[in-house]
Structures are given as structure tokens and as C-alpha cells.
């Protein structure tokens, strides 16, 4: 048992924080222009790639171990700095990158993986469909074999980076087996719908896509081995991304509220001197540290215990995502009128927190799955 990070990990964290500061210095111009949006996030990826952030979870190096725990500790740092950059980068490099790294052919890796992890390409992963619930409902996006290519048809909703991605990894079925179709967004038969206007993560490009006999070369299809739980792995990875997002939101909200409580005076003293404010901060920090340790343990278990990892990840996602909403809400209460104005990190966290409860495995489904595990039904 060891609750310390190694020296190498601590050094990497420190270097990452400097790199993140550099990324944050680049202000995103909200022009509504997708090309501009794409360019901005590719530049962010490029800076992060320089320190090896995009390789985390894919490769390990002398100064950056490849463990999921180390990845989680790094992810939360970026998530605290910018929810939008974080989610864009993670769905591009991490989710897409992991699919390639785990199941891709060498040719697919040569073509796309380096470009993704260097920031040269933006990727997207399309999983959700109309039912919005791949746990309960089978995938309806289907590929049909035709000569030397696959014709892919289906509708995918809420594709993060959909409007700006160069490539989209579309999860569907091929001959009744789960498969991933690597789709060039310039291919025929793919239509990316209008970018959604959302309550949170408003700087992330999210849209549905429609595939109508979309042409996918056979060599751009990934069919994992039979024993691989493709959907379970994707869900676990997405849940891990959302867990780290929750940690980042909590950190940002606490920092914002704490700074305000120390600076803002009322009744002749800083508001932190009042128990109602101080105690809220204490509760917030308690939720954050509890979430953080749980997230680290779940990440560690992900690498060390196949039997326990899925349920523990689900427990963690429920706890962290719900804690994020509570912490952000408490922060807004402390910030009072200031918090109600747009533009501060606490109100951003409050709006984004709901996404972490809905996306990946929703908290309702997660609780059912955890309950079934306790009952011995799964």
C-alpha cells in the first residue's frame, strides 16, 4: 500500500501544469467558424503532445509511467483548467487513440495513431444512438460487406468533436459482431448535422451524424477478437474520462469559491469567517478528496483487477459526477451574485456537471448495474 506519487510522476505533473498554463494562454475566439474551432483545438493538442500528454494510457516512457492512475492524475489537471479543451482532447486522442492502440492493425496505427497523439488530427468516437443507451439496446448502426468495402448505415447522436473531426471511429455491428468503422469525414455517405447548442461544454463541438451507405474501405474496419468486450471497454474508458472531468470541475469550483470567500467582505470581515461559508468549503473539500482517492483507486484497480474494475469504475463515476454537481452548487452559493454571472469557473462547472452524470454510463444505469453485482445477478 502506498499513497504517494513517485518522484517521476510528481515531476511530470509539475511539467504538465506548466504546459497547461501555456495552452490556457491561447484564448479561443468564439467565432462560430468550425475551421477556426478545429484549428484552435488542434493547436492545443499539439502543445499537449509536446510533453507526451496525449500518449498517456497508450505508451509509457522513462518519465511518464503508463498506468491508468497516472493518467487520471494528469487528466484531472487539464480538466480543472479547461473543460472544453479537456473533453475535446480526450475524446480525440484518448478514446480514438485507445481503440487503435488496443485493436487496430499496424497499418491503421501507422496511418492514424501518431497523427492523433501528435495533435495533427482531431478524432471523434460515435457510440450513442437514438435510444441513447447502448447498455439496454443493441446497436443499430450496421455495416454490410460489399466487394472490397463496407457500406455503413445508421444514426449516431451527441458525437463529441463530430463537426470538427478529421476521422470518426463509428461503433456498430458487422455480421452481428461489434466493430469499429474508421470513417474519413470527407467520405461519401456521411452527413454531420448542425452543431448542438448545449447547456454545458458549450465550447465543444457536438453534433449527430447520419451514415447512409457510407463507404468504408475494409482495411479501415476494426473487428476485435470475440472474447473482447468492446462496448464494456469503451464505456469504461469514457467513464474514466468523465470521472477525471468531475474531479477537475470540483477543483476549479473550490478554488474559485475559496478565493472569493477570502477576498469578499461582509459585515466587516471576509465571508470565510462565517461558519455557513466556511463549513460549505469544508464539505466541498471533503467531497473532492473523497472523490479523488476513489478515482485513483478505481484507476489503479482498472490495471490490476479485472474482476473488480468495472463495478468500482461505475461506483466512482456515480460518486464523482454527483459530487461535482454538489460542489459546484455549493460554490455558487458562496459566490452569491458573482457566481450567478456567466464566465466564472464555478458556474461553468455547475452547467457541465450534469453532462458527466448523463454521458458514458448514466448514473441510473450505473446504479442498476452496481445493484445487480451486489445481488449476484451479474
Amino acid at each position: 500500500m502506498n499513497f504517494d506519487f513517485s518522484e517521476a510522476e510528481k515531476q511530470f505533473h509539475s511539467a504538465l501544469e506548466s504546459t497547461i498554463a501555456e495552452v490556457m494562454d491561447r484564448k479561443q475566439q468564439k467565432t462560430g467558424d468550425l475551421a477556426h474551432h478545429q484549428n484552435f483545438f488542434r493547436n492545443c493538442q499539439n502543445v499537449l503532445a509536446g510533453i507526451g500528454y496525449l500518449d498517456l494510457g497508450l505508451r509509457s516512457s522513462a518519465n511518464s509511467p503508463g498506468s491508468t492512475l497516472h493518467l487520471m492524475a494528469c487528466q484531472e489537471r487539464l480538466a480543472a483548467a479547461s473543460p472544453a479543451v479537456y473533453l475535446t482532447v480526450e475524446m480525440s486522442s484518448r478514446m480514438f487513440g485507445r481503440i487503435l492502440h488496443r485493436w487496430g492493425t499496424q497499418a491503421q496505427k501507422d496511418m492514424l495513431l501518431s497523427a492523433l497523439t501528435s495533435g495533427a488530427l482531431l478524432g471523434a468516437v460515435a457510440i450513442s444512438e437514438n435510444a441513447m443507451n447502448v447498455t439496454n439496446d443493441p446497436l443499430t448502426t450496421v455495416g454490410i460487406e460489399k466487394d472490397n468495402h463496407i457500406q455503413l448505415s445508421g444514426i449516431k447522436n451527441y458525437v463529441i468533436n463530430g463537426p470538427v473531426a478529421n476521422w470518426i471511429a463509428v461503433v456498430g455491428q458487422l455480421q452481428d459482431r461489434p466493430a469499429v468503422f474508421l470513417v474519413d469525414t470527407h467520405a461519401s455517405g456521411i452527413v454531420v448535422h448542425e452543431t448542438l447548442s448545449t447547456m454545458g461544454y458549450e465550447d465543444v463541438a457536438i453534433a449527430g451524424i447520419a451514415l447512409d451507405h457510407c463507404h468504408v474501405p475494409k482495411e479501415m474496419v476494426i473487428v476485435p477478437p470475440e472474447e473482447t468486450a468492446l462496448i464494456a471497454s469503451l464505456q469504461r474508458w469514457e467513464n474514466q474520462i468523465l470521472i477525471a472531468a468531475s474531479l477537475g470541475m470540483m477543483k476549479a469550483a473550490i478554488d474559485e469559491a475559496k478565493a472569493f470567500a477570502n477576498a469578499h467582505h461582509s459585515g466587516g470581515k471576509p465571508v470565510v469567517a462565517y461558519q455557513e461559508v466556511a463549513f460549505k468549503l469544508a464539505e466541498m473539500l471533503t467531497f473532492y478528496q473523497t472523490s479523488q482517492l476513489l478515482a485513483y483507486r478505481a484507476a489503479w484497480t482498472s490495471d490490476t483487477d479485472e474482476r473488480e474494475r468495472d463495478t468500482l469504475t461505475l461506483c466512482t463515476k456515480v460518486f464523482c459526477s454527483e459530487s461535482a454537481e454538489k460542489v459546484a452548487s455549493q460554490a455558487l452559493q458562496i459566490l452569491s451574485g458573482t457566481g450567478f454571472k456567466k464566465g466564472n469557473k464555478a458556474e461553468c462547472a455547475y452547467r457541465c456537471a450534469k453532462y458527466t452524470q448523463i454521458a458514458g454510463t448514466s448514473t441510473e444505469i450505473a446504479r442498476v448495474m452496481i445493484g445487480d453485482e451486489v445481488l449476484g445477478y451479474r
Partner: protein
Amino acid sequence: MDFSLSKEQLMFKKEVVQFAKKEIVPRVQEYDLKEAFDFDSFRKLGAFGILGLHFPEKYGGEGADVVTTVIAGEALGEAGVDGGLTLSYGAHSFLCADTILCHASEVQKQRYLPKLATGEMIGCMALSEPDAGSDVASLSTTATRKGDRYVLDGTKMWITNGPIADVAVVYAKTAPELQHAGISAFIVEKGTPGFTAGQPLVKMGVRSSQTSELVFSNCEIPAENLLGNEGEGFLMAMQTVEWDRSALLAPFLGTANYLQKKCAQYAKGRVQFGRPIGHFQAIKHKLADIRIFGEAAKALVYRVAWYKDQGRPLNHLEAAIAKLFIGDYSLGPTNDAVVLHGGYGFTHEFDVERVFRDGRLAPIGGGTSEIQKKIISKLM
């Protein structure tokens, strides 16, 4: 970072669970309903090595580290040992015996520790008073030096094991004008003239643990019964916080597992509307919430224990977070367990009601949740 337990630790945990299920748990309900202390079970804990787990072997202990004591506490909770017995064990081993281990003379250690390790002697810590609970520095029990004796005067309250203790670590002011810096710690044996224990208080929960007043009226004790030096008592009391935030919280981790098993068993057997209630989402959600609490709390407690094993000074912020989380958020799962059992959950027939009652002490004893929030907010 590494969250693993060694094979030996896992084996030890399994052994404690098996021992407790066989030797102690069958008697738990009876002693809770009788509001009686189970001396036999307590001595069995001693014989098994639990009471003196962290004492050095030369004092009859096992020489275990703090993480191992947490494992033992978790295992007792997981087996279904009640909050009363685990509280008594905690107060005995960590709040009383450990203070003697750390601060008593060699003669005193030899006199008390082996018997505390076996349970032949029962220990208690007397710190709180009727008018000094959270504000412990304002305690008013005095210890006045008279030649080669100290004379103790005052009343202590909420003393776990008070009615049954053979030896007490008592905190009193040798220099009242110095506030907390004037607090000293003493060993007082049962039967010392001027020292009486009150009747056991009738409590809502932890009923197999006996709690009472201790009254000191012109109670004379030898000067060598002073632990350490005058004025060091407050620091000694604060040192017990490390145990309060690790080993004493450990049973809650195990109890979460115990509740999961009990509730799952009930949910699979109870049939309503033609199917086991475990098939309904509302029940699955309750089971999930109990599980989530248990998982969330685990690392908080082990972190405090691990840091203590590393010899690091107590991180008061992290220790307070552990206490606050378990204190406030263990109540939800115990409530869920009762509700899941329906009407049966409200009866003594199913022990979830006892767990609910026992758990109510969590945000109060050992430092209230409000005090933890005060500590956390000050340190952050």
C-alpha cells in the same frame, strides 16, 4: 500509488472475519437488547490478539502496524460485530492502552499492557466532561500536586467503558490558568478511593458498550501516575486522534459490506408483485448506494493509517475529512438498509435496525462533524 494489501494481510482479514462470525456475532443481538457488555466476547478478542494487535510483543501484543489494525476493524464490521463492541475495543486499545504505551513508564507498561492485551483489564479514556465536549480545552477537572501525590477533583462524562474499566487514562488540569497547555494525563485504577463510576447511560445505540460518568472527589493518586510531564496532556489526547480517524473508523468500512450482504440476501428472498424485490430498480439503487459509500470511504481511512505507519505527523486536514465523510455519509446507507427491509427493518428480528441506531453516533462521537468542518475550513 498502490492500494493493494499483501497476501498475509488478506489472509489475516479472512481469519478475523471467520473468527468473529463464529465466536462473537451469534451473541451480538442478545447483548445489544440486554444493554449489557459482553465480557466473554471481549476476552475472546484479546485471546485472538485483536486487543493488543499493535502493542509490541514484549507487552503481549502482536507488533502489528496501523494498517493491520484497520484491517482488523474492517473485518469485525464485515463479520457483523456490533458498533458497541467495536467502540469498546477502540476506546480500550487505542484511546487508553496506546496512551499508556506511548507515555507511561516501563514499570507501568509492564503492569498494564499485557493485561490490556488479553482483556483481563479493561481500559477507558476520560477526557470529555458535562461542560467540555467539543471544547475540550475548557475541561475543569483539576489535579493538584500535594507532596508525592496528585489529588483529582471533577467529573467526566460520556466515558466509553466507564462503568467496567479497571484502568482509566484521565485528563485533568494541573495548571488551569494555562488552558489547554495546563492539561495533564494520569493513570487511575478502579477502586482508588475518591474515584467512582456512574451507572451506565441508557443510549439509543451502541448499547452493548457501557458509557457513564466518572467522578473524582478528592481522589489521591501517586505522583508517578502522571503520564509524561505536566502540561503534555492535550498533545497526548490529540495523538489519539490518529487512531480515532483510522482504526476506530475502520468498522464502518466493514459494516458497509455487511449491510450489502444482508440487504442482498433479503432482496433476493422477499417476493412482492410476483418477483423478488431485488428485481426492482429502486431496490437495486439502494444496494448501489450502500456499495458506493463503502468504496468511497475506504481509501480515506487507509490513507490516515498508512501515513501513521510512515511515521509522518498527522495530517489534520485529511484526518478530519475521513471523520466527516464517514460521520455524515454513513447515515444514508444504514437508513437505506432499514427501508429496504420494509416493516421487518423496523424490528429487532433483523439487525439492520441495530446498525442504524449504532451508526447515529458517527457524526457525534470522537469529534463532531461540525468540529471536523471547523478544522477543515481552517486548514484549507
